[in-house]
């Protein structure tokens, strides 16, 4: 929904200018903010299916360390990824604010449900498209392709993350194929 509106905004600038105030009231998309290592991030709230407390998942054999395992959500098998571990941040033991955010990502043919472990969720933000600032290129692992932009909210800077790249499975596939090929060649 929000994306659609943004596109309209780009392609029909004149119409938007006419009733600027009204439209902008509606144009802002909602984002869900969360904490990671003292930093604040957020994702499009429409992709968040639910938030649940930390439960120990069933481990998957030979998986990369950031794949915590799989859990059962109403009969669905959902894999859980630790974002800190995945992007090389310092590992933190899970406590009572640790939550699993269940995200929905639309792929070419189907939608996929996965969970990410974050330190805590904080706020729901209403961000208008023009308030999103381009992020400087960092070279950091959690970098350019994952970040959709930055948003200043009072004293905090929120990093807007792309759900699609956050839940990308290419790394994991590579991990498994490499593992088996080394097993083979050893």
């Amino acid at each position, binding site marked *: 929904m929000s994306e659609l509106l943004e596109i309209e905004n780009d392609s029909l600038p004149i119409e938007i200018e006419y009733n600027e105030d009204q439209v902008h009231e509606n144009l802002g998309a909602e984002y869900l903010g969360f904490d990671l290592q003292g930093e604040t991030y957020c994702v499009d709230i429409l992709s968040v299916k639910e938030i649940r407390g930390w439960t120990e*998942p*069933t*481990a*998957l*054999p*030979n*998986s990369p360390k950031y794949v915590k*395992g*799989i*859990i*059962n959500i109403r*009969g*669905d*098998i*959902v*894999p859980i990824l630790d974002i800190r571990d995945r992007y090389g941040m310092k590992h933190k033991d899970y406590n009572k604010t640790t939550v699993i955010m269940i995200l929905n990502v*639309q792929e*070419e*043919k*189907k939608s*996929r*449900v*996965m969970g990410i472990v974050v330190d805590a969720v904080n706020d729901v933000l209403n961000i208008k498209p023009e308030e999103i600032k381009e992020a400087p290129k960092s070279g950091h692992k959690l970098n350019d392709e994952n970040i959709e932009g930055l948003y200043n909210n009072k004293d905090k800077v929120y990093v807007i993350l792309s759900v699609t790249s956050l839940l990308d*499975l290419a790394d*994991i*596939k590579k991990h*498994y194929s490499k593992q*088996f090929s080394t*097993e*083979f*060649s*050893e």
Partner: protein
Amino acid sequence: MSIDLSQFHQVFFEESFDGLEVMEQNLLGLTPESSDPEVINTIFRAAHSIKGGSATFHFTSVAEFTHILETLLDEMRNGERAVTTPMVDLLLQSVDCLRNMLSKLQDDQLVEHADYAELEAALKKAIDNDGDHESVNQQASDLTSKEAPSTAGLESDASAQHSEDSAWLITFIPEPQILQTGNEPIRMFRELNLLGEIKVVSQILKLPTLAEMDETLCYSQWMIGLFAEVDESAIREVFEWVDDECELKLEALTEEQVNARLSGEAFTEEALSEPERANAPSPIDEKIVDKNAKASVQSTSASPSKPQSNSNTDLQVRDKSEVKDPNQANKSAPVATGGSSIRVSIDKVDSLINLVGELVITQSMLGQMGEDFNITKLERLKEGLIQLEQNTRELQESVMQIRMLPISFVFNRFPRMIRDLSSRLNKKVELEIFGENTELDKTVMEQIGDPLVHLVRNSLDHGIETPDKRAAAGKSETGKVQLNAFHQGGNIVIEIIDDGAGINRERVLNKAIERGLVSEQQELSDEDVYQLVFEPGFSTAESISDVSGRGVGMDVVKKNIQSLGGSVEVRSEPGLGSTFTIRLPLTLAILDGQLIRVGNQIYVVPLTSIVESLQIKTHEVVSITGSFDVYKLRDDHVPILRLYETFEVKPDFTDYNDTVLVVVEVGGKKVGFMVDELLAQQQVVIKSLETNFISIEGISGATILGDGKVALILDILGMLNRLNKQKSSSKGIAA
């Protein structure tokens, strides 16, 4: 017209494929001796629905092609044309062709005219020949060479003068009750007007006096001049809905001719001009009312516009896919990948509803009891829980039933295949099918089709002998292939029995020795020898035919069946024939599992693959080349897989004395899993890992245990592959 028709495409394709199936089935039952009009009728109806559907969805090519087919069938139905074997062959080929076209459309591909041009020409020729059997015969057998002359013949007479025609004269004579069906001629004229400039002349000769007039009837008829170069099919589309309720005559003429004809008729009523959308989508529908005029109408309708309309057809299909594209980009999900669907008999649904009703009753009973429960009601609570358990189990079974389809879905393709193959191989073969109502899971069904086809081909090619050989062996000239399906335990068994020559033990053995699969000294039972035919690269056929003999296939057959959790066996009597027996689990959704524990992880091992579980002693284990351990189980040496090592979990025990060895077998290979503890045996529902994640070798899925936790289901074949890799790697080190 903003309805998105593409949402119905899936349904249309499914119905059409069903229709084709029906056509094929019935065509096979059609012989010159027994041409039951009802059978032809059924075929005709199937073709007609496909035509109607494809026209509605603007799959012009399919509609056009089916139309020709339909014309032919109509004549057969009316007894104007005799049923001949070549004709049936031709029709069967057309069914194949239609199936191809529809599959292409389903995949959003373009249907080229070349895809069906040959058959189209042959069919037209057959229609023109009007019962001339011999030429039909020739066409069916010799399509390619016939194509050029036949199309040329079609075009030659009319095309020259008609290509200059730029106007149409349409005679539209509606039946009086046309208004009662809600069809308003003026709307059709407006539609026509969209195609180009029109001139309408009304003829009111039949108009009765005012007193006699019934205001619900239509008394006038019209002649319409359409001054635009459009497809005939585009015009026919305008009249599509009144097709059955009018006489429609289309003549392609020059502008002057049309004007002359019109002014000769009566007074002009209206002349509108607005040439805008000339190229409307054009399904074709011809129902020629005037039997006498048939020949002439056909020559005008079929020939002049054909070359043009064909190129148009292609264009339109392309147009459509282009139109669709932006749509797809937005949705990022192609339309064609809509999930497959199954048809469920209403009985099954009814029984399901019944069960759910009972479940609700039990639930409310238990709920009531829970409100003021005391210990005196314990007995009733127990009863209630037993009832709940029963309800749940029945419900589970019924839901599973929904996925079950009769195996005739797979078997149905064989009569056709046998017919084609036996004529190609010059063998006489009779097919017998038993137990086609045996039900099995749809997923299993989809995957068993190809292996079965392969086995049947194999029986025909290698099993059944040629008629003279059979006669020499004292058997009847006609060979017999039997397909047999039945339930046995939790399995479905499919047998493919032929009464051919059987497997030649010596030849198989020699070949195997030659290929180095077995050594000459080895003592092999018949069973072992026959299993050799499933080895990769094994074929004893003396000549490679296009049917079989390349030696790829049997091993694939075996692999496919194993991946479904099944097995395949061969029995053979030299000179009497062979029997292939396939055993498959009824469903892939539920599995009998043995829960095992390693450290804090619980895994599920399919019960069917477990040979035995036993406690072992360290001294019974032998280490081989220091890299892997082997347990001596009676005569077998079973390699041991330390699950905690492969899965990188922390076990309770690492010493053989404390652990349990679960010996599993797949494809004749045994392996022992070292586990901490055996837990319960239970039925588990298989959930795919791939839905939200990726597939992992050695894991066939996951399931949810009673406490809501997830347990992984081991894929024994995958685990063995892992073990093999480890072995080969350790061998690599040793060498």
